[in-house]
């Protein structure tokens, strides 16, 4: 097992809860992310933006965290936006159909050496 590091930074900008996630999201690190997101998910009308531009890898456990967060926030009349997805992560959101229900923005300058 390599490093189990995941950092989640929370910034509030103009009433938007902006989360910057750095690291790999897998079964070992997902609980950290879940805990941070759970702290705000029940706020009425929450506007949340999750920046994943520094997440290289995420497995289905990570996806589970985002689905759970999306469901909770939507149920409370809020909005979730996910930004900065690399190709691999973007494909994951596409295959799962989640890109149809969650507001998603791909990485602006997707570099070409991203693994496929």
């Amino acid at each position: 097992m390599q490093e189990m590091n995941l950092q989640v930074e929370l910034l509030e900008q103009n009433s938007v809860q902006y989360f910057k996630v750095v690291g790999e999201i897998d079964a070992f690190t997902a609980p950290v992310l879940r805990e941070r997101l759970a702290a705000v998910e029940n706020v009425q009308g929450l506007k949340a933006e999750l920046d994943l531009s520094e997440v290289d890898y995420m497995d289905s456990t990570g996806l589970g965290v985002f689905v759970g967060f999306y469901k909770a926030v939507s149920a409370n009349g809020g909005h979730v936006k996910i930004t900065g997805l690399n190709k691999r992560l973007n494909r994951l959101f596409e295959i799962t159909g989640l890109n149809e229900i969650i507001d998603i923005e791909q990485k602006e300058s997707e570099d070409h050496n991203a693994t496929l």
Partner: protein
Amino acid sequence: MPQEVGRQYKEIMGKYLESPSEEDLYVGQQFSRRFIEKEIAPEDVISIHKTALIELHPELQDEVWNSLDFLIEMMIHYGLTLREHQSLIRKQEAIQMEMNVATKVQDTLLKTKMPCVSGLDVGYISQPATQMNGDYVYFLNKKHESGVAVADVIGKGIPAALCMSMIKFGMDGLPDGNTSPENVLGIINRIVEKSVDDSMFISMFYGKYNAEDTTFSYASAGHEPALHFTNSTGEFSELDAKGLLLGVKPDTEYEERSVVLNDGDFIAMMTDGVTETRTEDGFIDMNTIQNLLREVKDMSAQQIAEHVYHHLAELQNYRLSDDFTIVIFKKEPEQV
């Protein structure tokens, strides 16, 4: 019995004190195993030591006896921690037993029957990364058609196994004539959505081979696209269809598509344990999988599945990082 142990301890120690030798020291070390076997606590070992010493050398000064009493106090918490540790081990053994039972329940409850329709050769492998499998394969057999569900439950272990029983009983309860892939996924989605918690969901591919017109129709609920090999061209195409994961939104609609299978064509349906195989050099790509499949295109469906499995498991040094499932539907000439 402790008296017996005490007597033997005194004997061994007495011998050593008389003329200290490596050999007697070793005997003592071996003897300490008896303490552990008999679950004698550390503080009791010191009591035994003290009793033996009083009998052997009553002339020693009070400081020695007092220091041993002091040491006994020091050891009491070690003893408690040790007993806690032992009780944890026993609990863990009990949990392991329950896990074994759960795995057996999973195997019997979720058992599936290989399809048998003319012109279709079926093979599959589903290998869990840990004890309980989060992937699930279930065949639905009718007279002229074979359906297969390939599912990956997110969230592992026992909750995942319970989730699978929803898929199985949902499929078994389908009314005849309602087995088109879009219907199957729509119905199972409603069952799953009502029953699972928020961070749990299922990706599922449903494919159905119709022996009467040799078509394969399919729909996907957020699952990896299947691969379709066309024998006449030697090319692969991805079978993707729009559809959201099961258990996220109640009124989801699933797109259904179909392809015609000719002799020698096959469909490979997989979970992400196959497509997201991760090696020391990073992820494998789709070409790796396609090349593996192409190498054995003329073999039986089961041999194709096993070939892919053995090769990709080897790349991971036989330590799967995720549950691994591949199902092959291969069109073969009709038997007369």
